[in-house]
């Protein structure tokens, strides 16, 4: 029975690795930067799952602490990236950010982009 569970977890870990590789391909090729952000986020989730399953495979549950850490911290990078691209500053508050429309890179020239108000 232990052998069955070991095989099950190992198979799950290998499939997680495959999923990580697929998401990585999207990260490398992503046409827009939002695809990349999405891929990084998804990659984080897949890695968390990989770490959980893998700690069951090797029988040491310390890897789960690292998975908790990633589950908490994966969010911060995503928020930073989106703030960076939407408001072009890291220092302003989201609370009083007015809705503005920075343009994605289209190649053609566009008007000036308003940044979020600095408090």
């Amino acid at each position, binding site marked *: 029975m232990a052998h069955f569970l070991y095989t099950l977890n190992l198979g799950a870990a290998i499939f997680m690795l495959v999923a990580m590789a697929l998401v990585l391909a999207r990260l490398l090729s992503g046409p827009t930067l939002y695809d990349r952000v999405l891929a990084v986020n998804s990659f984080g989730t897949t890695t968390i799952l990989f770490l959980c399953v893998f700690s069951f495979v090797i029988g040491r549950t*310390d890897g789960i*602490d*690292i998975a*908790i*850490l990633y589950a*908490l*911290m994966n*969010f*911060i990078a995503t*928020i*930073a990236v989106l*703030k960076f691209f939407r408001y*072009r*500053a*890291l*220092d*302003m*508050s*989201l*609370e*009083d*950010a*007015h*809705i503005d429309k920075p*343009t994605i*890179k289209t190649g053609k*020239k*566009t*008007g*000036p*982009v308003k940044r979020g108000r*600095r*408090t």
Partner: protein
Amino acid sequence: MSPHLVLRVVAKMLIPLIALFAFYVQFHGDFGPGGGFQAGVILAAGIILYALVFGIDAAKKAVPPSWIRIGMSFGVLLYGGTGVATWMLGGNFLDYTQFAPESTHAAGQHWGIFAVELGVFCTVTCAMLAIFYAFGSRTPELSDEDW
């Protein structure tokens, strides 16, 4: 309509949990993975999340730059002071057994490791926040073509 309501609510729920996890890593470091450095980085990440969502000015109100200056030096002083204290008690520099020489369960070692990890925690948190404040407080001036 208030902008980014979802982000603000989730961040508000998440920041205390990140801080709690940082303290778990700090004080559970003797039994599981982790220690002062990791805990300091995690706590700093929590405060950085606060700064990202509620603005760097709010973060500076919560954790003022003067605290950062003091905390950064306090950590190193705590570490060094532990060594000096063992010195005063008659041992070598950073020889923690001097704190409780009669103990059979190495209580002196436990106290020494606790103090030292606390010093590392202080210094790392404050140094990470100092770097973030220094970079995050600056505003670039860009034309659209450069972007």
